[in-house]
């Protein structure tokens, strides 16, 4: 008897959970009436950000799992150029070719750094990944009245900013900058090759699950904050704050940061501000948002030391701001 129970334990637990879940589907819970309507708005925005982000996050953690199990330190050493400049340029180009979203990229970056990719190269990849890809180019092109110049500037200037920030990181930071708690034993080489493929594939999936749970709390917290900002912070007060040419750049960057929009969807929002703010400020919004935002900062904080995260934030913010000021006259 005991043995039968034991061998079927997985099935029993699984069945039990499945049954409980179906019960939830049939149950009609509704506490919508007792809550203030602003909270209902907040919740709708919150859930929608999560539904939008989950596919990208899941694909991100799966890729992270693949890197963890199938890519070895030797591969990385062979692929990444020894020269710092070459490594940075390569990482930014790979990021530009890689269609990522800012929610999915943090776990990938973390895995790459753990596998020995230099930190500066990983940051270059992280910055261009969400910003430069076909979907973003297309949506920007459409949102600005089928005008290619904004989309062009967004990609070009964004690429330059990413290169610069990657160089800054390479000057100021050594090592992997992981949080203390995560630092132990990650350079011990693995002898995965001996294990059969199915075993490795299974490890890849369990690894992805752990990665998901590491990221999820920060993603969810960030999404909630972003939704709260949208529900309670009037854009009007922001709009009034940004009437000078410099303050309007800062305001638009601040807005991009707190709204935490997906890079594939922010172009239409950006274009709706096109008349209230001068074009350079809107461009700052479009370049800064995909590179780093509230949701993304929280996810980075789950991996890297706070000092490093805020330095990257500072580097990105200042280079975006200064480069926009520089090119202002051409726009």
């Amino acid at each position, binding site marked *: 008897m005991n043995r039968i129970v034991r061998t079927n334990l997985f099935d029993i*637990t699984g069945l039990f959970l499945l049954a409980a879940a179906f019960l939830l589907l049939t149950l009609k819970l509704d506490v*919508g009436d007792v809550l203030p309507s602003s909270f209902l708005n907040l919740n709708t925005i919150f859930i929608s950000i999560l539904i939008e982000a989950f596919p990208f996050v899941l694909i991100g953690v799966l890729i992270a799992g693949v890197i963890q199990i199938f890519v070895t330190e030797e591969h990385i050493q062979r692929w990444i150029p020894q020269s710092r400049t070459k490594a940075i340029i390569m990482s930014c180009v790979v990021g530009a070719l890689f269609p990522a979203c800012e929610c999915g990229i943090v776990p990938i970056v973390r895995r790459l750094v753990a596998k020995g990719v230099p930190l500066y190269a990983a940051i270059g990849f992280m910055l261009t990944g969400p910003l430069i890809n076909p979907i973003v180019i297309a949506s920007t092109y459409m949102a*600005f*009245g*089928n005008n290619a110049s904004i989309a062009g500037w967004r990609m070009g200037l964004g690429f330059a900013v990413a290169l610069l920030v990657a160089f800054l990181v390479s000057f100021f930071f050594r090592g992997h900058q992981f949080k203390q708690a995560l630092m132990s034993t990650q350079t011990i080489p693995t002898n995965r090759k001996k294990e059969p493929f199915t075993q490795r594939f299974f490890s890849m999936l369990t690894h992805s699950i752990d990665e998901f749970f590491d990221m999820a709390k920060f993603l969810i917290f960030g999404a909630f904050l972003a939704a709260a900002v949208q529900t309670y912070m009037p854009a009007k007060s922001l709009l009034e704050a940004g009437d000078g040419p410099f303050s309007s750049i800062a305001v638009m960057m601040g807005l991009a940061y707190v709204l935490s929009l997906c890079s594939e969807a922010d172009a239409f929002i950006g274009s709706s501000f096109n008349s209230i703010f001068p074009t350079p400020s809107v461009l700052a919004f479009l370049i800064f948002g995909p590179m780093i935002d509230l949701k993304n900062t929280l996810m980075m904080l789950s991996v890297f030391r706070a000092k490093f995260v805020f330095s990257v934030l500072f580097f990105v913010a200042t280079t975006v701001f200064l480069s926009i000021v520089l090119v202002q006259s051409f726009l």
Partner: protein
Amino acid sequence: MVFQTQQAVRAAILLLFTVLIFKFHYTGEITMFINPKYIGLSQIASVLFLILFFIQITRIWEKKTHHHHHDHECSHNHDCDHNHDHGNTPITLKKVISYVIIAFPLVTGFTIPAKVLDSSIAEKKGGMAVITGKSETSSTDETAQEELVQPSDTEEVLPNPYGEITQEEMNSLVQKLKQSDPINMDDYVYYLNYEEISKDVASYKGREITLKGFVYKEEGFQSDQLVISRFLITHCVADASIIGFLTQFDEAATLDKDTWVEATGVLDVTTYNGTEMPFIKITDWKTIEQPSEPYLFPLNVKIL
């Protein structure tokens, strides 16, 4: 065989996310959250959650507890390349908090119904500042290629709702708008028409227009003015932006915010806070039920 509470909690969370997304699809609530164009993507998420759940349940009953302290030896089938939590370490308050955070959207997702965004959000998103703003945007646009389209093309059937349309199809839609009087602001072409009209208000002056939307009012409106507005969703409701037409009719004062109306009127030009913008003198209107698809989605033009 030892029951691993944390692994079980993780399995349950993965399954509940699967079910939550499935529920939104099943009830059709999903379009209250995201642009239907991305439905496929969220279904993929649901399936991935389910797969991860089936992987995760195998970890609920471990043969023995092994507190995986990272500094100890790397025996058995565990590689030591890890630098994160496996869910095998003892439960601490910090962990409880993180599971509570992760469970939070599950609780609100299952118990609080999706709400259609209302005028309070429209106000937070900038309201009239954004609507008047639209009229000033890019009037430098290309008009040259639109002339190429033959008028005979304009009677074609609308292309599939959420797919991409070609540049020619879009041009013919614009051409159709230019010739139509009355103009019907159908959901499918609403945003396209809205942009075209905003770009060149003067040439549409005097035409009859029919539209629907919810009532939005702001400080500074006269008592007979209101905006008939809609939300445009690119990807998810977090990126909703408000669009709409300023209208004028005597009974406007009696209508509350967020009431849905269908109205017919004559397009005119007005100046609001120093900006020229379209304006509709309403001739006929009625209140309607909120449509089942309250949001608008931009057309996707193929560019490659």
